[in-house]
């Protein structure tokens, strides 16, 4: 009987399934058409036009929540996902993610126009000097590998982050070779698969390389490479929403807190506070919504010190605990894309030169991308995301062309800039509770490797919130307390 019914169902479906006739599309023509449509749309979104692809969502955020996450970049959504995944019973934790970039409009690609997540180059590596960073990145690699098991939403195509397992190749000069070797020892101890190469081996393996000044190199064999950050962000977001996370378009502008005064034995007065309400400015209106909440997670990336300030962090007198700022600042980083038809081929890894310049292959068509972190004096203005093309000519190109001589002739095709959520104190993330604001958690300050650590950090914060302690990876070394004590958690391999 059941069989009969299925047959019926199928028969019923058949004509419906055939709605679109099979046809071989001329993909290029289609593409230009799509592109034109896109351009029209993009124009429509610019200020001065009243066009919107969707009625702007007027949905107010829920009035109260257990956890409010400020910032819907990859870190924010990862925290949201892990909170839902680890909640003791379904629906036990009410989570809201507040993101201001969505407000541009809910369907355009201009969304996340500034979020670092979508402006990154998508690299993942285990070649760090701190065991915590190596463990996080190993965890994330595993997460990316099993991403479809973690983030599959029913009825949707499998999640594929387009991982390129091409590895990172770090080059070390005379001065840095000893450090490199030491780092590799730590990496291997933590279970990363890294091999050391001499200049002769390098030359043999990578004939396109000029090994002048290279004394030693380390090359990641597994779990290193690059992937598509959009896919990761969208997959985390879709999954989290399918599990019941609320998303709210709007900007967090202030917190309403309760303060308790306490006096220490030495007579010093300390103010403990607790955030009661998160005040969200709704897009395109003068409306404000308040979310009553028990916990807040600061995952606002490069802007997280502003969010910390809203909670009074860093506003106290200079040598008190409340005077310690969250030392995370936006730092502009350029990425250039160039074409070089005779450039290195399929075996080209993510190359990190002795000078700190990096580059990698982008696709198969002879395109490459790369850049370098400017020195402190060269730090560009952070008002906008304009790209300085001279920077490539003067700082990036000479270094790369020296290392990879075939890059001497190349054509820059495009470029973009994004903000590192840069920790000026020690270039390491700040993770965990604040000592004085006792319901504010940090997950920020990743200084250029936040994308790859997001899955691990999300889990860590979820553990802190739900279990009160780290269970998988101990990230105590990155707590806010180190800033107060002035102890640096120094990571040597910051690119």
């Amino acid at each position, binding site marked *: 009987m059941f069989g009969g019914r299925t047959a019926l169902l199928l028969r019923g*479906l058949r004509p*419906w*399934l*055939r*709605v*679109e006739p099979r*046809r*071989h*599309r*001329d*993909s290029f023509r*289609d*593409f230009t058409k*799509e*592109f034109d*449509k*896109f*351009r029209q749309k*993009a124009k429509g*979104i*610019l200020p001065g036009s009243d066009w919107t*692809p*969707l009625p702007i969502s007027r949905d107010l955020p829920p009035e109260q929540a257990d956890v409010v996450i400020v910032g819907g970049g990859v870190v924010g959504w990862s925290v949201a996902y892990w909170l839902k995944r680890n909640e003791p019973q379904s629906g036990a934790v009410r989570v809201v993610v507040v993101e201001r970039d969505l407000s541009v409009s809910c*369907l*355009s*690609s201009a969304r996340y*126009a500034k979020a670092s997540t979508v402006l990154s180059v998508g690299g993942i590596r285990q070649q760090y000097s701190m065991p915590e960073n190596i463990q996080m990145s190993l965890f994330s690699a595993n997460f990316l*590998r099993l991403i479809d*098991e973690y983030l599959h*939403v*029913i*009825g*949707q195509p499998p999640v594929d982050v387009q*991982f390129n*397992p*091409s*590895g990172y190749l770090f080059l070390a000069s005379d001065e840095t070779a000893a450090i490199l070797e030491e780092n590799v020892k730590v990496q291997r101890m933590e279970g990363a*698969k890294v091999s050391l190469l001499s200049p002769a081996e390098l030359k*043999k393996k990578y004939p396109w390389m000029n090994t002048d000044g290279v004394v030693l190199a380390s090359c990641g*064999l*597994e*779990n290193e*490479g690059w992937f*598509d950050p959009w*896919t990761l962000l*969208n997959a985390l977001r*879709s999954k989290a*929403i*399918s599990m*019941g996370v609320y998303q709210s378009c709007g900007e967090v502008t202030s917190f309403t807190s309760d303060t308790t005064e306490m006096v220490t034995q030495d007579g010093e007065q300390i103010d403990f506070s607790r955030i009661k309400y998160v005040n969200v400015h709704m897009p395109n209106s003068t409306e404000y919504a308040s979310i009553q909440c028990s916990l807040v997670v600061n995952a606002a990336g490069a802007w997280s010190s502003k969010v910390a300030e809203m909670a009074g962090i860093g506003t106290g007198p200079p040598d008190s605990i409340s005077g310690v700022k969250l030392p995370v600042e936006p730092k502009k980083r350029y990425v250039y*894309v160039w074409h070089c038809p005779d450039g290195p*081929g*399929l*075996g080209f890894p993510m190359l990190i030169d002795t000078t700190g310049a990096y580059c990698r292959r982008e696709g*198969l*068509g002879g395109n490459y991308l790369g850049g370098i972190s400017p020195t402190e004096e060269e730090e560009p203005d952070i008002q906008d995301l304009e790209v300085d093309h001279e920077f490539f000519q003067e700082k990036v190109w000479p270094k790369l062309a020296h290392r990879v001589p075939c890059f001497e002739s190349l054509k820059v*095709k*495009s470029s*973009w*800039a994004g903000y590192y959520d840069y920790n000026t104190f020690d270039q390491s993330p700040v993770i965990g509770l604040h000592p004085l604001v006792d319901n504010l958690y940090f997950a920020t300050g990743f200084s250029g490797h936040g994308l790859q650590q997001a899955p691990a950090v999300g889990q860590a914060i979820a553990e802190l919130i739900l279990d009160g302690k780290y269970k998988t990876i101990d990230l105590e070394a990155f707590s806010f307390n180190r800033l107060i004590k002035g102890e640096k958690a120094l990571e040597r391999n910051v690119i």
Partner: protein
Amino acid sequence: MAAPTLLRQCRGIVSLLYSSSRYNSSSTSSTANPAKVGVLQYLCNRFYDIETFVEVSRALKKWNLHRNNRFCIEACERYGYEVGAAVFVLNLKGRIRAWGQNNWHQNSITKWKDDLNFQRLEEVRLEAIDISGSIISYNGLDNLVNLKALKYLDLSRCPNIDDWSLSRLTVFRDTLEELSLAGCPQITERGLACLHHFQNLKHLDVSDLPSVQHKGLVRILLEEMLPQCDIVGMGYGETEPPVEGATNRREMEEHPEAAINLKAREIHT
């Protein structure tokens, strides 16, 4: 009682996913076509317990895969990794050949033991493994990665071998001479790139890899990357027929220049 909420949620996901694909700024046009939404989603929207069914069947499949790819810990502990690997391969109906042997073995491990001329099982070194058509996965490779002298590996038609698994094979980079990946549906050109570690590879079979894009170009790039190696199975002139319903993203990859322009645009808008 939960049904209405669930239903609402299901619909919520659909609309969300349509808004989420990266370059798909014009996806609204395709939303209108119900066939593209997928039968499953259609059913999901109406019957909320379909989700549970699907989850259970996924879990079952996963469990089976996991069970078959377990690490043969007892054999490894008693006789070392080489014998452990042999046990694993034979369990999956594969074939093995040890150094010094002339013939492949695919029967029981005890029979293989009788055939060996070694006095001690611990001294055996596997030279060749043919595990084609099996359900070996990334985790199953745990059993193989400690082999000391593997020269020949046939992974053809293994549905669970993916790019991540390929990067695990780099442990054999100094010994491996022949590798077959023919007919592995999950392998893409991204994974093939990590074969550059295999300096001693002499023979590579990459025929019939449906997920590899731009086969002709990849063939040339592979040859350039592995000059010492004989590559078979991927023609220079091979181009794949246009995929019906290819996502915008794929098309974008075929026109990298445009993709990059788009990227630059996105930032300005």
